[in-house]
């Protein structure tokens, strides 16, 4: 049944996925596993135990040099000066001059004058172009995506697994920090305490050639389940985490997207600053709302109605395995976006009841106290 498209790129773990019986689908120009045993099984494994995800399709850029700090401080919205120590990391946004979101990404400080940026696969070329267009002398920019694999290990049991693989001497980095490690005394990698599931865990960066070894080492633990992009999506929607292309794009600014916290008001001198300041001063026309939907499964594009009138469309929508109900995000007129507002989602010929809630949809336990 496996038909492959020669135009799609493959990660270094492609053969591993096929051997595990994964269902492969096209995603952002890549051939990726959407599921192995089943999305709900995999979702529950991450919430209760641990799951491993191949996210090697994501882009890795290394930015270094005397002017690297100033360069990233100008291109990204979060305040890079908060990364005061080597090994710290932050979520950030890259904006156009009009405030439109080019991408969301994570910046890791990997050296005094060196940063690693992990960005969305779908924005790989656009990001690289934007970085190169603005890069001054004194900044080295290297696209390391092709020789870098990224494997996420997520779930309440994830830290125990990584600790065992890295040895008792090795110290698990703090949340939003990264540390180098040697897995099983043989494989060099970077271990970042970040993720996209709402559970504690790590994301492991290694050389592409080492990816199959890392993957197999992780799966040698009975508590670790291979998970595909299907579960990654349901897990992140339950947490209210944004997905680029659904919950934000170049037509949305950070304030409207509910990402004002990624653009500190105290920060200045970044691209998009005037537009963000203007958006902060007024009330945005629309805001991203979070909806619990009963009586159907909301999908991207479904109309959202208020008293029978269409007021927006579903941006992200799925079935929540944890809540056993539909959940969705949608850009809606700001005046409607408050907790408890009753709406309807038109799911083909039927309407389902929807209520605005505060994210996250699901409160997880493994990250509490962080």
């Amino acid at each position, binding site marked *: 049944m496996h038909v492959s498209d020669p135009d799609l790129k493959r990660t270094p773990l492609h053969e591993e996925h096929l051997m595990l019986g994964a269902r492969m689908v096209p995603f952002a120009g890549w051939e990726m596993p959407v599921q192995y045993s089943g*999305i709900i099984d995999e979702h529950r494994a991450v919430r209760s135990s641990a799951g491993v995800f191949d996210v090697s399709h994501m882009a890795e850029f290394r930015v270094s040099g005397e002017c690297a700090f100033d360069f990233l401080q100008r291109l990204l919205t979060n305040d890079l000066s908060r990364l005061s120590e080597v090994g710290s990391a932050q979520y950030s946004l890259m904006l156009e001059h009009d405030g439109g979101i080019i991408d969301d990404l994570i910046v890791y400080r990997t050296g005094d004058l060196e940063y690693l940026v992990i960005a969305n696969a779908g924005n790989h070329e656009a990001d690289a172009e934007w970085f190169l267009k603005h890069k001054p002398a004194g900044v080295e920019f290297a696209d390391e995506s092709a020789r870098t694999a990224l494997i996420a290990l997520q779930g309440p049991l994830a830290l125990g697994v990584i600790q065992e693989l890295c040895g008792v001497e090795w110290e698990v980095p703090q949340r939003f920090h990264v540390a180098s490690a040697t897995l099983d005394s043989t494989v060099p990698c970077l271990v970042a305490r970040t993720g996209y599931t709402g559970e504690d865990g790590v994301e492991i960066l290694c050389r592409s050639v080492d990816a199959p070894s890392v993957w197999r080492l992780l799966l040698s633990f009975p508590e670790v389940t291979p998970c595909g992009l299907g579960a990654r999506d349901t897990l992140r929607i339950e947490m209210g985490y944004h997905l680029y292309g659904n919950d934000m794009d170049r037509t949305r600014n950070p304030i409207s997207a509910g990402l004002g916290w990624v653009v500190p008001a105290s920060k200045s001198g970044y691209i998009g600053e005037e537009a963000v300041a203007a958006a902060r001063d007024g009330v945005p026309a629309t805001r991203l709302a979070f909806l619990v939907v009963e009586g159907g*499964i909301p999908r991207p594009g479904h109309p959202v109605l208020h008293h029978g009138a269409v007021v927006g469309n579903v941006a992200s929508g799925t*079935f929540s395995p944890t809540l056993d109900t539909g959940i969705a995000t949608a850009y809606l007129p700001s005046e409607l976006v408050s907790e408890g507002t009753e709406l309807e989602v038109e799911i083909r010929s039927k309407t389902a009841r929807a209520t605005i809630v505060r994210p996250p949809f699901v409160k997880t336990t493994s990250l509490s106290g962080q």
Partner: protein
Amino acid sequence: MGHPSDRSYSEDHEWVLVQGDVVTVGITDFAQDQLGEVVYIELPSTGDTMNQGETFGEIESVKSVSELISPLSGEIVEVNSALSDTPETVNADPHGEGWMVKVRLSDAAQIDALMSAGEYDSFVTKG
């Protein structure tokens, strides 16, 4: 593959089990496997009319929505209402407890046009 030989199959991956002038309809093991975990099912009501080739319901997995296509025409005499609370039964037992509707046929000859288990097995392995 090995779908049960006591019933007939449609190209839209429904099975039909004949018991007198009433037939039971469900989706095949192949179909449930392709869909993945079923999380929502929309079925018609008892008394509704079903027309061959037309949609009689919808089935959703986490990732996808599929239409249920009527393999036959007739009047719906019973609906498996348990599926609305436990749609996963379709995955666990597609040819048994996961049945969807029972239909009183208006044209018994339509059954002859359906596939046998052997024909359906080769139909799905050819892709």
